[in-house]
């Protein structure tokens, strides 16, 4: 029976483990190795120590992308979580008080279904979708307006020239962030809703009995108890702020760099170095740098927001 057990274990683990090591583990290890060498992607890599990493800091494309990530890091979690919090509060607790219990607004179920929808769509598809939404139109040029410009024109915003959301270097990055928020909000609405429904109602009732306003209910009870979920959301969104590859490559002009290189992101630069130029070693170094930046952010976030969990 022992023989059979070992054979069974090996038999069941052989295929998954082999596949995994071959296509996941080994390439990751190689990336870390290759980050320290000069490699064109085809012939043998030649070791060059920390040169790649040193060059990163003087590479304006690298530093430019990092700047964009800082902006996204601040804006994306802040905007998404604020909106999602507000909506999930409304949907779960913002409605009538029925039979002594706080309810969500009417149709909250339908709202949630609609809000969550962008999550199930592929990012690349959303990118193409919003390329059309953000389109700067011009009748004389035969270019139709995107929905956004059409709405703005209908309400009188925007002059003779429509707004180039993706072609104006001051707007492009924000337009990209806008799409990221559009896709992310629904997920957090659902997440926060689930967390909120697990908060015992008696807490609310007791507070309401004491004369607490709705705002008080939100800030003094809901928010603190959602802290853990918020922390998770913050970290996930921060990690997402280090990505943006598919969206930017599909939506932004000039291969994703954007007007005046205003939408470059690190995964895009890594991609360009590895596949459009023979600088796979350098790209790997950039990837390693990005990886450490992401991990550092996650670690700091966890430390800073750490608190004892509240038992209830």
């Amino acid at each position: 029976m022992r023989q059979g057990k070992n054979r069974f274990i090996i038999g069941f683990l052989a295929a998954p483990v082999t596949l995994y090591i071959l296509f996941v583990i080994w390439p990751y290890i190689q990336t870390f190795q290759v980050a320290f060498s000069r490699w064109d992607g085809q012939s043998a890599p030649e070791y060059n120590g920390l040169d790649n990493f040193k060059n990163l800091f003087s590479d304006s494309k690298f530093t430019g992308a990092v700047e964009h990530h800082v902006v996204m890091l601040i804006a994306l979690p802040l905007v998404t979580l604020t909106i999602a919090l507000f909506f999930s509060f409304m949907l779960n607790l913002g409605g009538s008080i029925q039979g002594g219990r706080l309810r969500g607004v009417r149709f909250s179920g339908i709202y949630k279904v609609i809000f969550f929808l962008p999550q199930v769509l592929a990012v690349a598809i959303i990118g193409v979708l919003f390329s059309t939404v953000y389109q700067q139109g011009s009748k004389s040029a035969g270019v139709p307006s995107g929905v956004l410009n059409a709405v703005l024109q209908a309400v009188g915003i925007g002059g003779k020239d429509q707004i180039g959301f993706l072609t104006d270097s001051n707007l492009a990055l924000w337009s990209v962030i806008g799409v990221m928020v559009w896709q992310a909000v629904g997920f957090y609405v659902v997440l926060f809703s689930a967390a909120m429904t697990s908060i015992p109602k008696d807490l609310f009732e007791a507070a309401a009995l004491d004369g607490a306003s709705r705002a008080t209910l939100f800030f003094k009870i809901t928010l603190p108890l959602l802290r853990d979920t918020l922390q998770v959301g913050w970290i996930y969104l921060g990690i997402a702020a280090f990505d943006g590859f598919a969206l930017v490559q599909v939506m932004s002009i000039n291969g994703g760099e954007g007007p005046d290189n205003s939408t470059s992101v690190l995964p895009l630069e890594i991609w360009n170095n590895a596949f459009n130029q023979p600088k796979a070693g350098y790209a790997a170094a950039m990837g390693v740098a990005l990886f450490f930046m992401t991990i550092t952010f996650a670690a700091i976030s966890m430390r800073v927001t750490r608190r004892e969990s509240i038992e209830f």
Partner: protein
Amino acid sequence: MTTQPDTIRTAKPAARPAGAQPGRGRRRERNPFMALSHIALLLWALLVAVPLLSTFLGAFKSSDQILNGKPWELPHHWSFSAYGRAWSTAHVGRYLFNTIIIVGFSTFGTMLLGSMAAYVLARYTFRGNRFIYLMFVSGMTFPVFLALVPLFSMVKNMGMLFTYQGIILVYIAYSLPFTVFFMAAFFKTLPSSVAEAAMIDGAGHAKVFFRVMLPMAKSGLVSITIFNIIGQWNQYLLPVVLLSGDPNKWVLTQGIAQINTNAGGVADWSGLYAALSLAIIPVIVVYVIFQRQSGLTAGAVK
């Protein structure tokens, strides 16, 4: 027993009229804040729906109407020609077919291999169990694009570049961490009594797995399968790296993203809208059906 918690401002009435539901002690709060909130919710719902709706409508419109009309107008004439162009000339039909094939095989392979590995890791003790388990789970923390270039070389050297089998195997490999993590947790919760009984009856380990444990894990299998299908269906990075060289094998995401770059792609807007619709509508349909079936938002649907 409820009080009206807040000061009731008399300025504006609520956005909604007093509700029709009878009930004891039910009071509805009316104040501008509530009205604003309702408007905000509605606005966001529109923000989600309008881009999609105008795309679906646009697919039916003539170029003239798209240029000169408003995006939210209904089509003057409902023409399906754009869909035809998107399906065949722009190869969206082929991309859909490719995606179904690839995701079908990959999800099956993922669930099979993932469950097998998860089961062994969850219910058997042996040296290296913890190590292998952590090896799988840690994969969830690494971003895929880190491994892209060595992965490309690896697949190229194995002669599987631009092939179905290559991308299927890679999909399976990268879906294993998530699958193993969740299925292992699930397998741990299953009672051992049934398995033991089967073994006493003389069934081998493998038989127990396939005949007894897997069926017991059905609910877990179903939800993880669905997550894998969605994740693999929406993949963009891996196909672009591993399938670019052969446009006949492209999947839906990369096909739509590069819709204007392959020969005979649609270059007009109605065709583009049609292609987008073909990619989006099936997903929405499945999503809505799934919503009704399992109530993803269960407990929150009032």
